[in-house]
Protein backbone atom coordinates (compact mmCIF):
# COMPACT_ATOMS: atom_id res chain seq x y z
CA UNK A 1 0.00 0.00 0.00
CA UNK A 2 0.97 3.60 -0.46
CA UNK A 3 1.70 5.61 2.65
CA UNK A 4 2.74 9.22 3.09
CA UNK A 5 4.56 10.02 6.30
CA UNK A 6 5.14 13.47 7.77
CA UNK A 7 8.23 13.06 9.89
CA UNK A 8 9.74 15.50 12.38
CA UNK A 9 13.28 16.19 11.14
CA UNK A 10 15.71 18.00 13.42
CA UNK A 11 19.47 17.95 12.79
CA UNK A 12 20.49 18.16 16.45
CA UNK A 13 19.37 19.51 19.82
CA UNK A 14 20.20 23.08 18.85
CA UNK A 15 18.69 23.28 15.37
CA UNK A 16 15.14 24.14 14.52
CA UNK A 17 13.11 21.21 13.26
CA UNK A 18 10.18 20.84 10.91
CA UNK A 19 7.75 18.27 9.57
CA UNK A 20 8.96 16.73 6.28
CA UNK A 21 6.72 14.61 4.02
CA UNK A 22 7.98 11.37 2.44
CA UNK A 23 6.07 9.02 0.15
CA UNK A 24 6.45 5.25 0.45
CA UNK A 25 4.99 3.39 -2.51
CA UNK A 26 5.23 -0.18 -1.37
CA UNK A 27 4.45 -0.76 2.27
CA UNK A 28 3.31 -4.22 3.28
CA UNK A 29 0.50 -4.39 5.82
CA UNK A 30 2.51 -7.07 7.65
CA UNK A 31 5.32 -4.65 8.40
CA UNK A 32 5.64 -3.26 11.88
CA UNK A 33 5.68 0.50 12.15
CA UNK A 34 9.44 0.48 12.71
CA UNK A 35 10.01 -1.77 9.69
CA UNK A 36 8.11 0.81 7.67
CA UNK A 37 10.57 3.41 9.01
CA UNK A 38 13.45 1.04 8.12
CA UNK A 39 12.15 0.95 4.54
CA UNK A 40 11.96 4.72 4.55
CA UNK A 41 15.55 4.93 5.79
CA UNK A 42 16.80 2.52 3.10
CA UNK A 43 15.12 4.69 0.53
CA UNK A 44 16.65 7.85 2.03
CA UNK A 45 20.11 6.26 2.21
CA UNK A 46 19.96 5.12 -1.43
CA UNK A 47 18.98 8.66 -2.41
CA UNK A 48 22.02 9.89 -0.49
CA UNK A 49 19.94 11.58 2.22
CA UNK A 50 20.29 11.45 5.97
CA UNK A 51 18.12 8.62 7.41
CA UNK A 52 15.54 9.40 10.09
CA UNK A 53 16.93 8.80 13.57
CA UNK A 54 14.66 6.85 15.89
CA UNK A 55 15.16 4.68 18.96
CA UNK A 56 14.47 0.96 18.99
CA UNK A 57 15.93 -2.14 20.56
CA UNK A 58 14.05 -5.37 21.29
CA UNK A 59 11.23 -4.79 18.79
CA UNK A 60 9.02 -7.14 20.73
CA UNK A 61 7.31 -4.63 22.99
CA UNK A 62 9.16 -5.24 26.24
CA UNK A 63 12.16 -2.92 26.41
CA UNK A 64 10.58 0.53 26.23
CA UNK A 65 13.21 1.96 23.89
CA UNK A 66 11.02 2.75 20.92
CA UNK A 67 8.19 5.20 20.85
CA UNK A 68 7.03 8.01 18.64
CA UNK A 69 3.87 10.09 18.54
CA UNK A 70 1.77 8.80 15.65
CA UNK A 71 -1.08 11.03 14.48
CA UNK A 72 -0.98 12.87 17.80
CA UNK A 73 -1.12 9.71 19.95
CA UNK A 74 1.99 8.24 21.61
CA UNK A 75 2.60 4.75 20.13
CA UNK A 76 -0.33 5.32 17.75
CA UNK A 77 -3.92 4.14 17.82
CA UNK A 78 -3.42 0.66 19.33
CA UNK A 79 -2.61 -0.11 22.96
CA UNK A 80 0.89 -1.38 22.27
CA UNK A 81 4.40 -0.13 21.66
CA UNK A 82 5.38 1.43 18.34
CA UNK A 83 7.37 -1.67 17.38
CA UNK A 84 4.33 -3.89 17.87
CA UNK A 85 2.04 -1.62 15.90
CA UNK A 86 1.52 -3.02 12.43
CA UNK A 87 0.83 -1.25 9.18
CA UNK A 88 -2.44 -3.17 8.80
CA UNK A 89 -3.81 -0.65 11.29
CA UNK A 90 -3.54 1.91 8.48
CA UNK A 91 -5.19 2.13 5.08
CA UNK A 92 -3.77 2.52 1.59
CA UNK A 93 -3.24 6.21 0.90
CA UNK A 94 -3.07 7.25 4.57
CA UNK A 95 -1.03 10.25 5.65
CA UNK A 96 0.70 9.54 8.97
CA UNK A 97 2.20 12.24 11.19
CA UNK A 98 5.25 11.05 13.13
CA UNK A 99 6.68 13.19 15.90
CA UNK A 100 9.02 12.67 18.87
CA UNK A 101 7.87 12.53 22.51
CA UNK A 102 7.33 16.16 23.48
CA UNK A 103 8.01 17.53 26.93
CA UNK A 104 10.29 20.16 28.42
CA UNK A 105 12.16 17.41 30.25
CA UNK A 106 12.56 15.24 27.12
CA UNK A 107 14.79 17.36 24.87
CA UNK A 108 15.09 16.18 21.26
CA UNK A 109 18.55 14.83 20.44
CA UNK A 110 17.89 14.25 16.73
CA UNK A 111 14.74 13.71 14.67
CA UNK A 112 12.57 11.30 16.68
CA UNK A 113 15.11 10.57 19.41
CA UNK A 114 14.68 12.28 22.78
CA UNK A 115 16.76 12.23 25.95
CA UNK A 116 14.84 10.31 28.62
CA UNK A 117 17.62 10.52 31.22
CA UNK A 118 15.18 12.26 33.57
CA UNK A 119 13.44 8.90 34.08
CA UNK A 120 16.70 7.26 35.19
CA UNK A 121 17.25 10.01 37.74
CA UNK A 122 13.72 9.57 39.13
CA UNK A 123 14.42 5.85 39.62
CA UNK A 124 17.79 6.66 41.22
CA UNK A 125 15.92 8.84 43.72
CA UNK A 126 14.21 5.83 45.30
CA UNK A 127 12.72 3.44 42.74
CA UNK A 128 14.47 0.37 44.13
CA UNK A 129 14.88 -1.67 47.30
CA UNK A 130 18.25 -1.90 49.01
CA UNK A 131 17.98 -5.52 50.04
CA UNK A 132 21.28 -7.28 50.66
CA UNK A 133 21.77 -9.70 47.81
CA UNK A 134 22.69 -13.28 48.35
CA UNK A 135 21.06 -16.50 47.41
CA UNK A 136 17.32 -16.12 46.93
CA UNK A 137 15.24 -17.04 49.97
CA UNK A 138 12.45 -19.59 49.81
CA UNK A 139 9.63 -17.68 48.08
CA UNK A 140 6.90 -19.03 50.36
CA UNK A 141 8.61 -17.49 53.39
CA UNK A 142 7.17 -14.13 52.41
CA UNK A 143 3.45 -14.46 51.84
CA UNK A 144 1.89 -11.86 49.55
CA UNK A 145 -1.89 -11.69 49.06
CA UNK A 146 -2.85 -12.65 45.51
CA UNK A 147 -4.61 -9.33 44.81
CA UNK A 148 -1.54 -7.36 45.93
CA UNK A 149 0.80 -9.54 43.91
CA UNK A 150 -1.34 -9.09 40.81
CA UNK A 151 -1.62 -5.34 41.21
CA UNK A 152 2.10 -4.99 41.94
CA UNK A 153 2.85 -7.01 38.83
CA UNK A 154 0.53 -4.85 36.75
CA UNK A 155 2.43 -1.76 37.89
CA UNK A 156 5.77 -3.51 37.41
CA UNK A 157 5.06 -4.00 33.70
CA UNK A 158 5.98 -0.33 33.14
CA UNK A 159 8.75 -0.26 30.53
CA UNK A 160 9.68 3.40 31.15
CA UNK A 161 9.00 4.32 27.54
CA UNK A 162 7.70 7.81 28.37
CA UNK A 163 4.40 7.67 26.47
CA UNK A 164 2.59 8.92 29.59
CA UNK A 165 4.62 12.13 29.57
CA UNK A 166 4.17 12.55 25.82
CA UNK A 167 0.40 12.15 26.18
CA UNK A 168 -0.08 14.29 29.28
CA UNK A 169 -1.36 17.79 28.51
CA UNK A 170 0.65 18.89 31.56
CA UNK A 171 3.87 17.06 30.63
CA UNK A 172 3.67 15.18 33.92
CA UNK A 173 5.46 11.89 34.63
CA UNK A 174 3.13 10.96 37.46
CA UNK A 175 2.04 7.63 35.94
CA UNK A 176 5.64 6.50 35.50
CA UNK A 177 6.55 7.52 39.06
CA UNK A 178 3.33 6.07 40.48
CA UNK A 179 3.86 2.72 38.74
CA UNK A 180 7.14 2.21 40.59
CA UNK A 181 5.66 3.44 43.90
CA UNK A 182 2.78 0.97 43.52
CA UNK A 183 4.95 -1.91 42.40
CA UNK A 184 7.30 -1.68 45.40
CA UNK A 185 4.78 -0.30 47.89
CA UNK A 186 2.50 -3.32 47.59
CA UNK A 187 5.21 -5.85 48.33
CA UNK A 188 6.80 -6.66 51.72
CA UNK A 189 10.30 -5.97 50.42
CA UNK A 190 9.29 -2.40 49.57
CA UNK A 191 8.06 -1.42 53.03
CA UNK A 192 11.26 -0.25 54.82
CA UNK A 193 11.92 2.48 52.25
CA UNK A 194 8.30 3.29 51.41
CA UNK A 195 8.30 6.83 52.83
CA UNK A 196 11.73 7.87 51.62
CA UNK A 197 10.96 6.38 48.20
CA UNK A 198 7.85 8.45 47.56
CA UNK A 199 9.41 11.62 48.96
CA UNK A 200 12.60 11.18 46.94
CA UNK A 201 10.97 10.20 43.68
CA UNK A 202 8.36 12.97 43.72
CA UNK A 203 11.01 15.53 44.61
CA UNK A 204 13.17 14.36 41.70
CA UNK A 205 10.14 14.27 39.38
CA UNK A 206 9.49 17.94 40.17
CA UNK A 207 13.18 18.88 39.99
CA UNK A 208 13.38 17.42 36.48
CA UNK A 209 10.71 19.92 35.44
CA UNK A 210 7.83 17.53 34.79
CA UNK A 211 4.38 19.01 35.25
CA UNK A 212 1.80 18.38 37.96
CA UNK A 213 -0.96 15.82 37.57
CA UNK A 214 -4.51 17.12 37.12
CA UNK A 215 -6.07 13.66 36.81
CA UNK A 216 -7.06 13.97 33.16
CA UNK A 217 -6.15 10.36 32.43
CA UNK A 218 -4.50 10.64 29.02
CA UNK A 219 -1.43 8.82 30.37
CA UNK A 220 -3.20 5.58 31.16
CA UNK A 221 -4.94 5.61 27.78
CA UNK A 222 -1.64 6.05 25.94
CA UNK A 223 0.31 3.55 28.07
CA UNK A 224 1.26 0.51 25.95
CA UNK A 225 1.24 -1.61 29.10
CA UNK A 226 -2.07 -0.30 30.41
CA UNK A 227 -0.68 0.87 33.76
CA UNK A 228 -3.86 1.64 35.70
CA UNK A 229 -4.68 5.19 36.79
CA UNK A 230 -5.30 4.29 40.43
CA UNK A 231 -1.52 3.98 40.86
CA UNK A 232 -1.47 7.80 40.92
CA UNK A 233 -3.98 7.88 43.76
CA UNK A 234 -1.86 5.34 45.56
CA UNK A 235 1.18 7.57 45.12
CA UNK A 236 -0.84 10.48 46.54
CA UNK A 237 -1.89 8.38 49.54
CA UNK A 238 1.71 7.36 50.18
CA UNK A 239 2.87 10.94 49.73
CA UNK A 240 0.28 12.37 52.14
CA UNK A 241 1.22 9.70 54.68
CA UNK A 242 4.95 10.24 54.29
CA UNK A 243 4.62 14.03 54.47
CA UNK A 244 2.49 13.88 57.63
CA UNK A 245 4.91 11.43 59.29
CA UNK A 246 7.79 13.68 58.27
CA UNK A 247 6.07 16.76 59.71
CA UNK A 248 4.73 15.24 62.92
CA UNK A 249 7.74 12.99 63.41
Amino acid at each position, binding site marked *: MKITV*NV*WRQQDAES*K*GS*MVPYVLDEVSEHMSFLEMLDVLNEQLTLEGNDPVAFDSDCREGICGTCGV*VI*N*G*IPHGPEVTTTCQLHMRTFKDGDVI*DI*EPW*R*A*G*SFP*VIKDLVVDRGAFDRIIQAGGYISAPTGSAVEANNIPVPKADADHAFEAATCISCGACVA*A*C*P*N*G*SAMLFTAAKITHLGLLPQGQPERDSRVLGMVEQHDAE*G*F*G*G*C*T*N*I*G*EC*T*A*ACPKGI*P*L*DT*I*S*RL*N*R*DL*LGALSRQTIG
Partner: protein
Amino acid sequence: MAVSGLIMIGYLLLHMYGNLKVFAGKEAFDEYAHHLRTFGEPMLPYEGLLWIVRVVLLAAIIVHVYAVVVLWRRNRKAGAVRGARRYYSKKNRTGIQRSYASFTMRWGGLVVLAFIVYHLLHLTTNDIAPGGASDSPYERVVNGFEIWYVVVAYTIAMLAVGFHLWHGIWSALTTLGQNRSSNRIDSRLTGLAVVVTLVITLGFLMPPWAIFLGLEA
Protein backbone atom coordinates in the same frame (compact mmCIF):
# COMPACT_ATOMS: atom_id res chain seq x y z
CA MET B 1 -6.52 22.88 45.37
CA ALA B 2 -8.41 19.70 46.29
CA VAL B 3 -9.15 20.76 49.86
CA SER B 4 -10.17 24.33 48.99
CA GLY B 5 -12.39 22.98 46.21
CA LEU B 6 -14.13 20.54 48.54
CA ILE B 7 -14.78 23.35 51.05
CA MET B 8 -16.51 25.35 48.30
CA ILE B 9 -18.56 22.32 47.25
CA GLY B 10 -19.76 21.95 50.85
CA TYR B 11 -20.85 25.58 50.75
CA LEU B 12 -22.62 25.11 47.42
CA LEU B 13 -24.73 22.31 48.89
CA LEU B 14 -25.82 24.55 51.79
CA HIS B 15 -26.45 27.48 49.45
CA MET B 16 -28.54 25.27 47.19
CA TYR B 17 -30.63 24.16 50.16
CA GLY B 18 -31.34 27.82 50.96
CA ASN B 19 -32.31 28.58 47.36
CA LEU B 20 -34.83 25.77 47.32
CA LYS B 21 -36.68 27.62 50.11
CA VAL B 22 -38.07 29.73 47.27
CA PHE B 23 -40.58 26.95 46.76
CA ALA B 24 -41.79 27.40 50.35
CA GLY B 25 -42.86 30.98 49.63
CA LYS B 26 -41.78 34.54 50.39
CA GLU B 27 -42.16 34.31 54.14
CA ALA B 28 -40.15 31.12 54.54
CA PHE B 29 -37.42 32.36 52.21
CA ASP B 30 -37.04 35.75 53.90
CA GLU B 31 -37.19 34.15 57.34
CA TYR B 32 -34.42 31.74 56.33
CA ALA B 33 -32.30 34.62 55.04
CA HIS B 34 -32.88 36.55 58.26
CA HIS B 35 -32.15 33.54 60.41
CA LEU B 36 -28.78 33.09 58.69
CA ARG B 37 -27.87 36.51 60.09
CA THR B 38 -29.04 35.81 63.63
CA PHE B 39 -27.70 32.24 63.66
CA GLY B 40 -25.80 31.48 66.84
CA GLU B 41 -26.89 34.67 68.66
CA PRO B 42 -26.10 35.67 71.35
CA MET B 43 -22.91 33.57 71.25
CA LEU B 44 -22.13 35.10 67.84
CA PRO B 45 -22.78 38.74 66.90
CA TYR B 46 -25.36 39.68 64.24
CA GLU B 47 -24.20 38.22 60.87
CA GLY B 48 -21.42 36.48 62.82
CA LEU B 49 -21.83 33.08 61.18
CA LEU B 50 -22.20 34.69 57.77
CA TRP B 51 -18.89 36.51 58.17
CA ILE B 52 -17.12 33.37 59.33
CA VAL B 53 -18.40 31.62 56.21
CA ARG B 54 -17.40 34.55 54.02
CA VAL B 55 -13.85 34.61 55.39
CA VAL B 56 -13.46 30.84 54.97
CA LEU B 57 -14.79 31.01 51.40
CA LEU B 58 -12.58 33.92 50.47
CA ALA B 59 -9.57 32.07 51.86
CA ALA B 60 -10.60 28.96 49.90
CA ILE B 61 -10.89 30.96 46.67
CA ILE B 62 -7.50 32.61 47.20
CA VAL B 63 -5.83 29.24 47.89
CA HIS B 64 -7.62 27.70 44.90
CA VAL B 65 -6.56 30.45 42.50
CA TYR B 66 -3.02 30.51 43.86
CA ALA B 67 -2.75 26.77 43.28
CA VAL B 68 -4.07 27.17 39.73
CA VAL B 69 -1.50 29.84 38.90
CA VAL B 70 1.40 27.80 40.30
CA LEU B 71 0.24 24.62 38.53
CA TRP B 72 -0.54 26.36 35.27
CA ARG B 73 2.88 28.00 35.05
CA ARG B 74 4.65 24.78 35.93
CA ASN B 75 2.64 22.65 33.51
CA ARG B 76 3.00 25.11 30.68
CA LYS B 77 6.76 24.92 31.06
CA ALA B 78 6.72 21.13 31.37
CA GLY B 79 4.85 20.63 28.11
CA ALA B 80 6.59 23.35 26.16
CA VAL B 81 9.05 22.85 23.35
CA ARG B 82 11.58 25.57 22.65
CA GLY B 83 10.91 27.32 19.36
CA ALA B 84 8.19 24.91 18.18
CA ARG B 85 4.68 23.73 18.83
CA ARG B 86 4.32 20.67 21.02
CA TYR B 87 2.66 18.56 18.34
CA TYR B 88 2.07 19.53 14.73
CA SER B 89 -0.31 16.73 13.89
CA LYS B 90 -3.85 17.99 13.56
CA LYS B 91 -5.23 14.53 14.22
CA ASN B 92 -6.61 13.51 17.62
CA ARG B 93 -6.55 17.09 18.86
CA THR B 94 -8.96 16.29 21.67
CA GLY B 95 -6.77 13.55 23.09
CA ILE B 96 -7.51 9.89 23.62
CA GLN B 97 -10.00 9.76 26.46
CA ARG B 98 -9.93 13.08 28.28
CA SER B 99 -13.28 14.63 29.06
CA TYR B 100 -14.48 18.01 27.83
CA ALA B 101 -14.74 19.08 31.46
CA SER B 102 -11.11 18.22 32.21
CA PHE B 103 -9.58 20.53 29.64
CA THR B 104 -11.94 23.44 30.21
CA MET B 105 -11.16 23.70 33.93
CA ARG B 106 -9.27 26.98 33.67
CA TRP B 107 -11.56 28.85 31.28
CA GLY B 108 -14.60 27.37 32.97
CA GLY B 109 -13.15 28.49 36.29
CA LEU B 110 -12.81 32.06 34.98
CA VAL B 111 -16.45 32.02 33.86
CA VAL B 112 -17.45 30.86 37.33
CA LEU B 113 -15.30 33.56 38.97
CA ALA B 114 -16.82 36.31 36.80
CA PHE B 115 -20.26 34.98 37.66
CA ILE B 116 -19.53 35.03 41.42
CA VAL B 117 -18.61 38.73 41.20
CA TYR B 118 -21.79 39.55 39.29
CA HIS B 119 -23.84 37.31 41.58
CA LEU B 120 -22.66 39.13 44.73
CA LEU B 121 -23.36 42.52 43.17
CA HIS B 122 -26.81 41.36 42.13
CA LEU B 123 -28.25 39.39 45.02
CA THR B 124 -26.01 40.21 47.98
CA THR B 125 -25.30 43.93 47.73
CA ASN B 126 -28.11 44.54 45.19
CA ASP B 127 -25.97 47.18 43.41
CA ILE B 128 -27.05 45.61 40.15
CA ALA B 129 -30.79 45.09 40.32
CA PRO B 130 -32.36 43.81 37.14
CA GLY B 131 -36.11 43.94 37.62
CA GLY B 132 -35.86 46.31 40.59
CA ALA B 133 -34.11 46.43 43.98
CA SER B 134 -35.77 45.34 47.17
CA ASP B 135 -35.10 44.82 50.88
CA SER B 136 -36.74 41.43 50.66
CA PRO B 137 -34.30 38.77 49.47
CA TYR B 138 -37.24 36.87 48.00
CA GLU B 139 -38.31 39.81 45.89
CA ARG B 140 -34.77 40.42 44.65
CA VAL B 141 -34.64 36.86 43.42
CA VAL B 142 -38.08 36.91 41.83
CA ASN B 143 -37.59 40.35 40.23
CA GLY B 144 -34.31 39.23 38.70
CA PHE B 145 -35.37 35.87 37.37
CA GLU B 146 -38.48 37.13 35.66
CA ILE B 147 -36.15 38.59 33.03
CA TRP B 148 -35.11 36.12 30.31
CA TYR B 149 -31.50 37.24 29.88
CA VAL B 150 -30.84 36.99 33.62
CA VAL B 151 -32.09 33.41 33.54
CA VAL B 152 -29.99 32.61 30.47
CA ALA B 153 -26.83 34.08 32.01
CA TYR B 154 -27.50 32.20 35.23
CA THR B 155 -28.03 28.96 33.33
CA ILE B 156 -24.75 29.36 31.44
CA ALA B 157 -22.95 30.02 34.72
CA MET B 158 -24.50 26.95 36.34
CA LEU B 159 -23.48 24.76 33.39
CA ALA B 160 -19.92 26.10 33.79
CA VAL B 161 -20.11 25.20 37.49
CA GLY B 162 -21.42 21.77 36.53
CA PHE B 163 -18.53 21.04 34.16
CA HIS B 164 -16.04 22.37 36.69
CA LEU B 165 -17.43 20.09 39.40
CA TRP B 166 -17.73 17.06 37.15
CA HIS B 167 -13.97 16.91 36.70
CA GLY B 168 -13.15 18.80 39.90
CA ILE B 169 -14.81 16.42 42.36
CA TRP B 170 -13.23 13.37 40.75
CA SER B 171 -9.86 15.09 40.55
CA ALA B 172 -9.92 16.39 44.13
CA LEU B 173 -10.73 12.97 45.56
CA THR B 174 -8.09 11.33 43.36
CA THR B 175 -5.50 13.84 44.51
CA LEU B 176 -6.40 12.98 48.09
CA GLY B 177 -5.66 9.35 47.25
CA GLN B 178 -9.19 7.99 47.07
CA ASN B 179 -9.26 6.56 43.56
CA ARG B 180 -8.98 2.79 43.71
CA SER B 181 -10.27 1.99 40.25
CA SER B 182 -7.97 1.22 37.39
CA ASN B 183 -9.57 3.42 34.78
CA ARG B 184 -10.85 6.90 34.38
CA ILE B 185 -14.38 6.09 33.30
CA ASP B 186 -15.32 3.10 35.47
CA SER B 187 -14.14 4.73 38.65
CA ARG B 188 -16.66 4.83 41.48
CA LEU B 189 -15.48 8.37 42.09
CA THR B 190 -16.72 9.34 38.64
CA GLY B 191 -20.17 8.15 39.67
CA LEU B 192 -19.99 10.17 42.87
CA ALA B 193 -18.78 13.23 40.97
CA VAL B 194 -21.62 12.95 38.47
CA VAL B 195 -24.28 12.58 41.19
CA VAL B 196 -23.04 15.54 43.25
CA THR B 197 -22.66 17.62 40.09
CA LEU B 198 -26.20 16.84 38.94
CA VAL B 199 -27.66 17.56 42.39
CA ILE B 200 -25.88 20.92 42.61
CA THR B 201 -26.50 22.00 39.01
CA LEU B 202 -30.17 21.00 38.91
CA GLY B 203 -30.74 22.24 42.46
CA PHE B 204 -29.48 25.67 41.49
CA LEU B 205 -31.29 25.75 38.16
CA MET B 206 -34.71 24.86 39.53
CA PRO B 207 -35.57 28.13 41.36
CA PRO B 208 -34.76 30.57 38.50
CA TRP B 209 -36.55 28.47 35.89
CA ALA B 210 -39.54 27.99 38.19
CA ILE B 211 -39.72 31.75 38.69
CA PHE B 212 -39.31 32.42 35.00
CA LEU B 213 -42.08 29.97 34.16
CA GLY B 214 -44.24 31.29 37.01
CA LEU B 215 -44.19 28.05 39.02
CA GLU B 216 -42.79 29.37 42.33
CA ALA B 217 -44.89 29.43 45.48
